[in-house]
């Protein structure tokens, strides 16, 4: 008969626990897409969404919209142009452009038309329809709606760093440009400041 003392069992349990504590484990938690997740301090989905929401809202509150609707008796047609990444990070500008497009479309205050990349694809489709689709279902060329305004802008950063503390200052500038006159009818700016602190030593 093998007798194991309580002390030994305790010791074994302690070793097992210690080893379990050392093991690398991947933990996945599903969270709502609206939850703010600042992990590295870099530009993330939350920044993209918040900036797009607030700036489009601001753009649509300004007088250019009512001025245009009053004089032309229709909603202005808007296209999103180039958003330049002038920052220190490899930001996926397409995600931000997509957020802007969503906000503009859902606002119901402007008519939003497809941007340059999408237009090429749509034109190719129409050309193919002209060759292969039934005549009564073909979509004719030359019926696109020309945009009245182009929304374009930049994402820039200013970095400051010393002794493990980094301050990242994002400045997002968006402007609505009249495509006929090149007049800038609206200029919006959003600033985000993040401070990332790193410890010099841990045990």
């Amino acid at each position, binding site marked *: 008969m093998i007798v194991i003392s309580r002390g030994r069992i305790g010791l074994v349990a302690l070793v097992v626990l210690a080893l379990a504590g050392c093991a690398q484990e991947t933990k996945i938690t599903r969270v709502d897409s609206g939850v703010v997740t600042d992990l590295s301090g870099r530009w993330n989905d939350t920044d993209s969404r918040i900036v797009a929401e607030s700036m489009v809202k601001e753009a649509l509150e300004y007088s250019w919209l009512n001025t245009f609707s009053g004089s032309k008796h229709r909603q202005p047609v808007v296209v999103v142009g180039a958003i*330049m*990444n*002038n*920052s*220190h*990070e*490899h930001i996926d500008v397409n995600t931000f452009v997509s957020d802007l497009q969503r906000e503009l479309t859902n606002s119901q205050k402007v008519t939003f038309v497809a941007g340059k990349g999408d237009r090429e694809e749509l034109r190719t489709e129409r050309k193919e329809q002209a060759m292969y689709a039934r005549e009564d279902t073909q979509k004719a060329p030359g019926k696109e709606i020309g945009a009245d305004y182009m929304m374009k802008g930049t994402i820039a*950063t200013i*970095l400051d*760093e*010393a002794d*493990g503390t980094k301050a990242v200052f994002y400045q997002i500038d968006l402007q609505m440009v009249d495509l006929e006159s090149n007049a800038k009818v609206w200029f919006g700016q959003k600033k985000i400041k993040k401070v990332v602190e*790193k*410890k*010099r*030593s*841990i*045990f």
Partner: protein
Amino acid sequence: MAFVLLVGCGPSVNRYLLIEASLRAHDPKGADAIVAAAEKDYGSKSRVLYGMDRGMTLQLAGDYPQSNAVLEQAEEELDRLYTRKIRTETLAFLTSDTALPYEGDPYEQVLINVLKSLNYAMLGQWQDALVEARRIDHRLNVLSDQTQEKNAYRDDGFARYLSGILYESTGDVNNAFIAYRKAYETFESTRSWSHAAVPFQLRADLLRTAEALHFTQELAEYQHVFPETRWEPSQALQQLAQVVVISYNGRAPRKEDQFLDLPISLDALQLVLLNRGFSQANRHSNRPVDTVLYGLNGRVVRVALPQLIRQKTQVPLDTVSLVSDNGSRVTLNTELVQNVTALADKALSERIAGITVKALARAATKFALAEGATRGAQHAVGKDAAPWVGLLVGLLTKGLAVASEEADRRSWQTLPDEIHLARVWVPPGRYQVPDWFIGGSHDPLNPEAMRTLSLGLGETVVLIQRVMP
């Protein structure tokens, strides 16, 4: 067992010899496969080094997206390594600096961003290339703030110059001028140790951008400083296309152990002199013999310091020819823009005092611990067994102290000895250029060693070549 483990900590020399052989055979994919296969050998402490080595071989193999991915990982790891773990530092103090995570020297960290910017330029992703140019600027600014010593490596002429080229290629002449000016100032201030003079092309670039920006005072100053420099105004270049050649020449220096055997008795001094008489010093193959001899004697303290072994390139400059469809030939002569060996030399010389103090303290601690263990064992077994137990424990503990002494020999060895650069503006069109991947010669009569380059109006194309040795 501990001895075997500790010996295994050092970087594999064979790996780099194999990579070098593949590059000599114009087989960068083979070189990359060697680094990829050795990923586990690098270990968890050398993740950054793996990223650096792999990033370079992937770039040479033409896999620019993957090169960027591994270099980005290396950069993120570097960011994490800012926080030092006390337990790792303690372990390294008791064993060797190879137990510390490899962070690379500051010039190597800057070169991570340089390689990434070149990768993006090769992919035609100029906005992303500019992100790397901004990161270079930030990294160098932080380095400059941290480094008080004026003559130290605190800015990088080549990295600044490349940033300027990227800015100018995307039409941002103002930022290009600022980068060129910083590059010029850095080349000038570091020429005593960097062994890289201000490139002639940079002088022309400064004059051209100063004129384009109507900076009359700066233009006059630079014309006064470089009266011989010939340059084309920006307007004349707008109807042309640009070719930038980056040439990686030779092999970066490697590090080896330099053992200092410090005797603390007359017997030990005789032993050290005798041992050095029999065998060449500083040889890894002698370590087992040294371990037994010094372990038995018990009065020799070994300190290992890294020393740089230069592997200078034999190619002073490269000539690259572009042959247009109509048969006209444009010849580019590259210029030295980065002497990697000089940077490695400077980096080691700046750190060697600290490394030496730490190595001496480590050796003293190891000796004291071994001495304590030997005496403790002798005391525990009693008078009769004390002599042979003391001999055995002394051999083990002091032998281990000698065997475990190892300098940190890690460095980014897939880098070249020198980086050369040339840029030229040519009329848009199709050109034949040598393809070094298939043993490209500069002979347009051999079409198999050439590849076609299509240049559009205002377009910039970057060519990278690896020249061995």
